[in-house]
């Protein structure tokens, strides 16, 4: 346990505020100048049932969570049972004295019990509801984190509720902090010292994705609530009035994608966040977008299935579905960010790609990533770097100058036809889900069909120029190469680091972000030079490996797979590595 470098878990029942405590502590750490990486595990219920929040913090940037834990804040006895044994020797469990945890059992594990009258302090100095504040302050006390950071988070979280609430919470925090410092000040070796470094941001994957989209001009979002996609809608919904965005909750996901298409058709930049089940209902609409060539961006926040599956857990098993959804064939773009920063970048990039190619763009994320927090340097997110590219969109001037009748679906080499928005007298046109002529009118002519289909499909070829090959993790050459996509990349990065630090096996990794159209040429050489490809995926059938084989012929027969709803950790990769090589 190095100073300013530890991992803690906050565990408790749904409804006890595990999530808000975790998020609050992440913020406090960020303000103290530390880096943070967090993961959440929730059950699909409102009250009761064990939830937990893992926070890893360090002075240095953190690329992954991992399974080494030093500290546990247990809001229930169950939480002690579930997690205490995972703690490193020398670790500590903070819990309410009322829980009656057996001190002997805990010390047998080589860890300390930090018994704090959390509820009592809260009730005495504020109200019962403030016990989360007390627990956080206790945590700060034990790790010697300056209480100012707790106060500052209290200020942020409660100022809307008025000065009195802020004041009571401060009081409670102070009492709990003091209690721990007094009673357990030197029990726990770990320290969290403010570094005084410049301010960073902290956000989770869904916030980053939403922010990226918003900055890139997203002004319309339509959605039906579905975990773990809803928080994108909710974030944008709560920023709509201020930033000129319409966020429409719909009657179902069919309406969500159709509204987005309608809005996009007249010129909005539309986003549709959902999860796999909701996307299933959007499949018909997806093809409509492709046929009328209206740009929409869809986010699939993956969770384990089939069907309802494990509603609040994580999986990476919708890739081949996203690529093949809808009858027949049409161009689409599929992208999968793997960390918070990539979520931001892809949120922005997708908005541009959709309009540039006039196609649906699908962003794949997963429960793990949606709610995993990471600190970002303020300049990692540069709004000015995001250029809004509306593609071949005709301006009013262009349209005023039109001399020929406007062909919305003009045959073109790139497959992209200059687009006019409805409303100009010189460009009155039809769009239809039926096969159509260059003017957009219905046709059944075999030749026009073939040419129009060719035109649409050519966009796939054109878009390849915008598709990057996989990102290299670690050194160019290695003994084993982990092939991954999505949030699994965090664990892969960490595993690669550890292996290379250890030095016995030289490792690297390839993260596929741009998945469709599949960048064959940019991928094949990278795969071919690898000696030992290992697919690391959060699914059963190794979908990325299947995709790679389909597109390049390269067979990846070694696999590290997980499909129990929990994300892959670096330790999971390392322990399974022995089995596969």
């Amino acid at each position, binding site marked *: 346990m190095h100073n300013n470098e530890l991992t803690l878990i906050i565990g408790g029942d749904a409804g006890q505020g595990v999530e808000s405590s975790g998020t609050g502590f992440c913020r406090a750490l960020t303000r103290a100048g530390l880096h943070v990486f967090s993961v959440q595990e929730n059950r699909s219920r409102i009250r009761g049932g064990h939830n937990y929040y893992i926070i890893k913090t360090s002075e240095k940037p953190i690329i992954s969570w991992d399974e080494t834990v030093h500290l546990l804040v247990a809001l229930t006895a169950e939480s002690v049972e579930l997690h205490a044994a995972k703690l490193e020797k020398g670790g500590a469990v903070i819990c309410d004295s009322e829980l009656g945890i057996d001190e002997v059992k805990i010390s047998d594990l080589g860890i300390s019990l930090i018994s704090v009258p959390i509820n009592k302090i809260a009730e005495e100095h504020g109200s019962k509801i403030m016990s989360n504040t007390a627990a956080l302050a206790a945590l700060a006390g034990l790790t010697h984190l300056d209480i100012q950071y707790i106060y500052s988070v209290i200020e942020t979280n409660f100022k809307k509720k008025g000065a009195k609430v802020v004041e009571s919470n401060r009081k409670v925090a102070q009492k709990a902090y003091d209690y721990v410092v007094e009673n357990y000040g030197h029990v726990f070796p770990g320290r969290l010292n403010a570094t005084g470094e410049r301010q960073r941001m902290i956000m989770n994957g869904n916030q980053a994705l939403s922010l990226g989209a918003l900055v890139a001009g997203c002004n319309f979002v339509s959605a039906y609530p579905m975990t773990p996609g809803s928080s994108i809608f909710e974030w944008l919904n709560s920023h709509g009035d201020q930033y000129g965005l319409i966020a429409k909750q719909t009657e179902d996901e069919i309406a969500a994608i159709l509204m987005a*298409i*309608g809005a996009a058709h007249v010129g909005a930049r539309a986003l549709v966040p959902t999860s796999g089940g909701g996307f299933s209902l959007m499949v018909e609409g997806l093809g409509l977008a492709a046929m009328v060539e209206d740009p929409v961006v869809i986010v699939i926040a993956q969770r384990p299935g089939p069907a309802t599956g494990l509603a609040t857990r994580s999986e990476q098993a919708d890739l081949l579905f996203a690529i093949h959804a809808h009858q027949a064939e049409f161009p689409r773009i599929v992208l999968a960010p793997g960390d918070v920063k990539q979520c931001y970048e892809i949120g922005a990039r997708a908005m541009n790609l959709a309009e540039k190619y006039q196609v649906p763009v699908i962003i794949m994320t997963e429960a793990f990533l949606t709610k995993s927090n990471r600190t970002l340097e303020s300049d990692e997110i540069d709004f000015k770097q995001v250029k809004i590219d509306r593609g071949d969109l005709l301006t009013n001037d262009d349209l005023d100058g039109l001399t020929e009748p406007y062909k919305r679906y003009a045959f073109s080499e790139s497959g992209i036809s200059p687009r006019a928005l409805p409303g100009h007298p010189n460009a009155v046109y039809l769009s239809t889900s039926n096969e159509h002529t260059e003017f957009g009118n219905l046709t059944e002519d075999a030749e026009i069909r073939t040419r129009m289909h060719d035109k649409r499909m050519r966009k796939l070829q054109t878009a390849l120029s915008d598709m990057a090959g996989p990102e290299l993790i670690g050194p160019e050459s290695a003994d084993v190469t982990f092939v991954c996509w999505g949030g699994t990349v965090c664990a892969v990065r960490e595993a690669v680091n550890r292996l290379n630090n250890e030095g016995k096996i030289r490792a690297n990794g390839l993260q596929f972000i741009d998945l469709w159209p599949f960048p064959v040429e940019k991928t094949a050489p990278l795969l071919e030079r690898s000696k030992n490809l290992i697919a690391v995926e959060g699914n059963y059938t190794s979908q990325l490996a299947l995709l790679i084989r389909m597109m390049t012929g390269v067979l990846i027969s070694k696999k590290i797979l997980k499909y129990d709803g929990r994300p892959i950790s670096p330790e999971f990769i390392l322990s399974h590595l022995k089995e596969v090589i």
Partner: protein
Amino acid sequence: MAELKDYLSPNKPTWCPGCGNFGIWNALKNALVNRNIKPHEILIVSGIGCGSKLPDYTRANGLMTLHGRPLPAATGAYLANHDLKIILTHGDGDGFSMGGNHFIHAIRRNIDVVDIYQDNKVYGLTKGQYSPTSEKGFVSKTSQRGSIEESVKPISLALGQGATFVSRGFAGDIDHLVWLIEQALDHRGYSLVDVFQPCVSFNKVNTYQFYQQRIYKLQDEEDYDITNRELAFKKSLEWGDRIPIGIFYKEEGKPTYADELVPLKEKPLVKQELGALISESLKSEFM
């Protein structure tokens, strides 16, 4: 001034000779011209079905969506550009079977669109299956002993859900239909225009004659009060020897959906510059 020829398309309708859709098509164009609305100022949104082909024969902005889905598409277009006058034309199968859910939800949002149903009480384009508005007992390809389902009641449902303009027309009475569509165009808020549309190929029950013998106009009744929802509901259940057409119910002054949206206070969404409101302060909430 808008003229009928503005709406003239080089594409001729492929409807069967005598199809009620001709009447609806002409009534719509006339109503638009009478209200001086030009082709580029509107967006006609349709679904899939015989009637839904109307935009293909009409020189105007058109969006033919999927079977049953014109309403959510129209809602999106309306939210993004409420300067466009949005008109829907679609069938009874499209609107009340596949699209039944959107119907209920469009009403409760009071979106400002004119929603015209080409209600021929049969599936035309798929060649004659019974439809949601087919009368009980209607014999068709898929109801060979007669349908055993109660027909969908669009007028009653709209009234029950709080619609602000609820009306019914007949494709065989064009003057009345032109007037009705004009009223719908004038209304602010969701306007239902359910039009009895004879299908000469597949519905041999609800023919021109069938309607001519039965329909009467609510607005001809001296004491009819179009602001009385309960009375309208009572009239909506009337079916048999006498069938009412006209405006069943109208409620004025209720805000439309766009009226209540903060981002639309100044102008339509698509007329606002993209990304113009983004500022560094957005970052601070993450700090």
